[in-house]
């Protein structure tokens, strides 16, 4: 069974993302694997452990500097890693369509006529939070998809998955091939062992060039830093708090 996993890198939540000359400043940012992609990769590795002969290949549409994320994926247990790059300097992480298009071309090109049985993605990246790439990728690959899964159990020719909906849970049967995007709660990603890290250093990261001449669907026209600070009014006790909320704010 062939399993593809799409990963990207995002700023570590503990890093301070700066602002310089009207743009986001990444100079003080520590990049890590997108947390949702880690759940996707973990689920792919668990699938591989259940089905003998499975091969997990990780794809990342990213500049050369983002290779560390692929190394981390190899250290966790992925068999192969592919960095997808495009010559036209069209790498626009803010446009989900071009990201999905680049990934779909890399996956189609890499596997040839027989597409992978499963493609795992994180449900969204934590930086732009569009949550659009997985379903777009599925449409481009001609596959079914389920977004934001919280559990997965193979059952004969089906995969039984679940996801949270408003006020409940939806249990869904899906057939191969499919794109599944991972929500937190799907699993607990494994830690990388020292041996895994050493072995990952020896593995090669393949490069796959894609051509992207299409226009983006959406253009990022500007960013402004947000002043999040509020001026906190400290109240002396519970009586005063209740009076403010019920009387002044009329919220209760």
């Amino acid at each position, binding site marked *: 069974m062939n399993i593809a996993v799409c990963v990207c890198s995002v*700023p570590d*939540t*503990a890093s301070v*993302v700066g602002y310089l000359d009207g743009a*986001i400043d990444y100079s003080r940012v520590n990049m890590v694997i997108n947390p*949702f992609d880690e759940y996707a990769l973990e689920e792919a590795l668990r699938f591989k452990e259940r089905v003998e002969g499975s091969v997990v290949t990780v794809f990342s549409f990213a500049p050369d500097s983002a290779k560390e994320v692929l190394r981390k994926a190899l250290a966790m247990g992925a068999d192969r890693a592919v960095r997808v790059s495009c010559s036209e300097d069209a790498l626009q992480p803010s446009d*989900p*369509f071009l990201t*999905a298009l680049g990934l779909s071309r890399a996956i189609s090109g890499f596997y040839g006529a027989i597409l992978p049985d499963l493609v795992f993605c994180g449900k969204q990246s*934590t*930086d*732009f939070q*569009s*949550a*659009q790439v997985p*379903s*777009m990728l599925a*449409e*481009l690959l001609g596959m*079914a*998809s389920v*977004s934001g899964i*919280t559990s997965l159990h193979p059952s004969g020719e089906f995969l039984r998955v679940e996801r*949270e*909906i*408003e*006020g409940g*849970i*939806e*249990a*869904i*049967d899906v*057939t191969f091939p*499919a794109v599944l995007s991972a*929500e*937190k*709660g799907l699993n607990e990603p494994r830690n990388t062992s020292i041996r895994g890290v050493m072995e990952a250093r020896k593995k090669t990261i393949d490069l796959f060039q894609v051509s992207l001449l299409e*226009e*983006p*669907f*959406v*253009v*990022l*026209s*500007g*960013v402004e*830093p*947000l002043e*999040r600070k*509020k001026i*906190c*009014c400290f*109240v002396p006790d*519970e*009586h005063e*708090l209740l009076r403010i*909320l*019920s009387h002044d704010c009329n*919220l*209760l």
Partner: protein
Amino acid sequence: MKKFLVFLEQREGIVKQSSLSAWNRVQELAALDGNSVVAGILAGPVDTGQLDGAMAGDGVIYHAGEDGLGVYNQERYTRVVADTFTREACTDLFFADTVMARDMAPRLSVRIQASLLSGRTTLDGDDGVSRRVYSGSFQASFVPTRQPRIYILSSSAPVPAFPDGGRINFIDIEPQQWTVEDLFPMVRRIIMGEGPPDVAEARIVVAGGRGMGSAEGFALIEQLASLLGGAVGASRTAVDSGWRSHAEQIGQTGKTVAPALYFACGISGAVQHLAGIGSAGVVVAINSDRGAPIFDAADYGLVGDVHIVLPKLIDLVKEFLKKQ
């Protein structure tokens, strides 16, 4: 002239309130535009009588009422919406922000080659969308480049007061020939939770963090939430410690909430948590550490141990509600 198409989501034959709000907001946008018409697409068998007087403005609703569309099916729903959008020469497609919309809209975007933007408020006539990125550290502006456009409306934007009871005409869409291939993914079962409202939709959220100390400590949070008719929320620490389920997590790897009133109890206020409460109305922080960053994100702060403050507050709220 623009033609707006609004996706009306139903579950078990009931059209969702969030879709009706979306319809009313799009009517407001059409009125602002002056020269636009609004239509709706409703998939699944629904007694349309329930919509009498619930929808503002005039418009046509295309109703694909066949039984095969009773529960959500990604491919069938996508096809019904795409066909209607194209056949009726619509220019813009609108969704309320729901799980179903997030599952279907990206697929539709590729199929009808439309720009897809989420987080839109309809209060301005601007085609672009401005929303928070990077855990709420930045406000980013996005501009569509394609002519057909799909918008997922921001759930936190206010719904306009609009006179209800417009003239709505229903046009039935003929049942289609479906194949087995488009049957999957197939929803097998829906398990609805009972009791408190979902944290993403609640008007009041009472959230707890590390300071609650244990799963048992959350009894206080549950009590206050239940008294106020609100939902329980949790920080990442509380979820990762196994005290609460992920469905209640608020923040970067959890939910984004926009309640009118938010209580942060024993939550320090890490950046990844603040990412989820940027659109909340009044934020109240209760924490024993006066230097905790949560107070920089709060409107009102009470410095004290949650295990002492909350029982007192719960008693006072009980008294207050009795007098009401």
